[in-house]
């Protein structure tokens, strides 16, 4: 009996609570619905429908696209933030961590609600633009557009990316960067040739997590994206609740998961290669 045995209760709980329901989706996906009752069968109907219905494939592709956009924007925004955090004096790093993570604790609904106040026609951004005379009419595309979805997904996931990059940057030997600078590299060159390749694993981890999290979000797109906010998630919810087509809901959910982990892993690999290739 060692500490390692404590893995058993946790494994059991996660297994029963998360893995079993996901595996049962495979079973449900081949069942048939007859007269509003789910009956055991071995029918490939839902899977055939999944790969032949353009709107399902479109929604899965859209999930992958919004995940990829969020992974890209959070990496671009995350590096300057993580570099600045890594340069904080040690005593301030704890404060930096709290300030970085506190926005994660605001409830999902608070965040969505707040964006409506910031980006609406009479919101903060439009008020500032109108008052400064930059625009004559309120900018409409700020709210209920694909831009809003991308902004919300970036906001929701930036702390995760910044944290992954920050941890990776802390592990880089400061002397390597100093050596590069001493040998005449400009700051950007030192970043591209030294910091970026050495933090490639952190970047890959961040890309994978942000991609999976952003591609699987349902609430932000549907409550902020307007007519563009239809997601695979909302479709699954609809098939599960209103339409009572559990086989189709299961097949779509599994298709989405496969896409998330497949594309996520590919992107993470690409990110580590891209960053590593510059060494």
């Amino acid at each position, binding site marked *: 009996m060692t500490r390692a045995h404590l893995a058993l209760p946790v494994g059991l709980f996660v297994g029963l609570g*998360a893995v079993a329901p996901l595996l049962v989706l495979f079973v449900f996906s081949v069942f048939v619905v007859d007269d509003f009752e789910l009956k055991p069968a071995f029918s490939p109907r839902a899977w055939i429908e999944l790969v032949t219905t353009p709107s399902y494939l479109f929604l899965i592709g859209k999930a992958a696209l919004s995940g990829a956009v969020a992974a890209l924007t959070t990496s671009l925004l995350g590096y*300057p933030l993580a570099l600045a955090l890594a340069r904080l004096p040690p005593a301030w790093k704890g404060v930096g961590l709290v300030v970085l993570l506190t926005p994660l604790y*605001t409830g999902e609904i608070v965040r969505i609600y707040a964006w409506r106040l910031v980006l609406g026609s*009479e919101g903060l951004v439009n008020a500032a633009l109108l008052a400064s005379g930059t625009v004559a009419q309120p900018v409409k595309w700020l709210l209920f557009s694909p831009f809003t979805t991308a902004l919300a997904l970036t906001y929701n996931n930036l702390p995760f990316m910044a944290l992954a990059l920050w941890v990776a940057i802390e592990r880089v030997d400061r002397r390597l960067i100093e050596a590069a600078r001493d040998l005449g590299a400009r700051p950007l060159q030192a970043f591209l040739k030294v910091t970026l390749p050495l933090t490639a694993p952190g970047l890959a981890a961040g890309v994978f997590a942000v991609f999976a999290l952003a591609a699987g979000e349902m609430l932000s797109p549907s409550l902020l994206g307007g007519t563009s906010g239809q997601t695979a998630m909302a479709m699954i919810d609809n098939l599960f609740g209103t339409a009572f087509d559990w086989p189709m809901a299961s097949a779509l959910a599994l298709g989405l998961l496969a896409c998330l982990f497949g594309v996520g892993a590919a992107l993470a690999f690409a990110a580590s290669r891209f960053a590593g290739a510059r060494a």
Partner: protein
Amino acid sequence: MSRAVLTLYALFLYLPIVVVALFSFNDSELMAFPLAGFTLRWYSALAGNAAFLHGFVTSFLIAQPVGVLGAAFGLAAALAVTSEHMRWRLGFAALVMIPFLVPKSVLSIAQAMLMSRVGLPRGALALILAQTLVVIPFTTALIAAVLVRLDKKLEEAARDLGATPWQSFRLVLLPQIKPALSGAYSVGVILSLGDLTISMFLAGRTQPLSLMVASEFRRELRPDLNAMQVVVLALTAVVLAVSEVYRRRRARVRRGRSVAAAAAVVEAVQ
């Protein structure tokens, strides 16, 4: 330079929260700039709102067991993953991360389908267990990060002096990780209070605050909802602040404590 960068990012990350707070004190039905003046009437409207108070109590009561269970499972998982004897370390870590990486809505729908198929009721218990599951990756990472930094020699010394595994855990390890445990508890409470997705699918007839707010403001934005959000944020901040103060106080006495604990072990086994 990096100070300016951090300020910009803080502005971005806190802008939405500040705007909600501003409008909660704004003396107008319309949520539009420019602001109309200071008022507390949205807060007094809130105090008389029985449905809000009921929703808040429900959310609070659900968050407590989520905090405790999340910390307990996180502790067990962190102890296992940092143990030298752990085989399949990577596989176990990946298993624990599943609830973080699988979209919450897919997970909740899958759980709802399985539960209704085998005849388990949705409601407070289902909600508590499902939220605990989603909290475990966070609490495990938090506690494991502290465990890997501990001085292994203290525990080895306790074992060399004849302490049983349970004694060395309770007297040497536990005093050192109490701050991390209280942090894990507050992360669980906070994530539970903020959750909407899981509640949508598993709450059954239970009505936590987030569900009430979601159904209210799908129709329209109202100023008293701002006040409600500020109250929820303020309570979240209190939970954070209390656990941070506790953590700092423990961190200061930790060194002294672990020496005292080692002495206690020596005494206990003699």
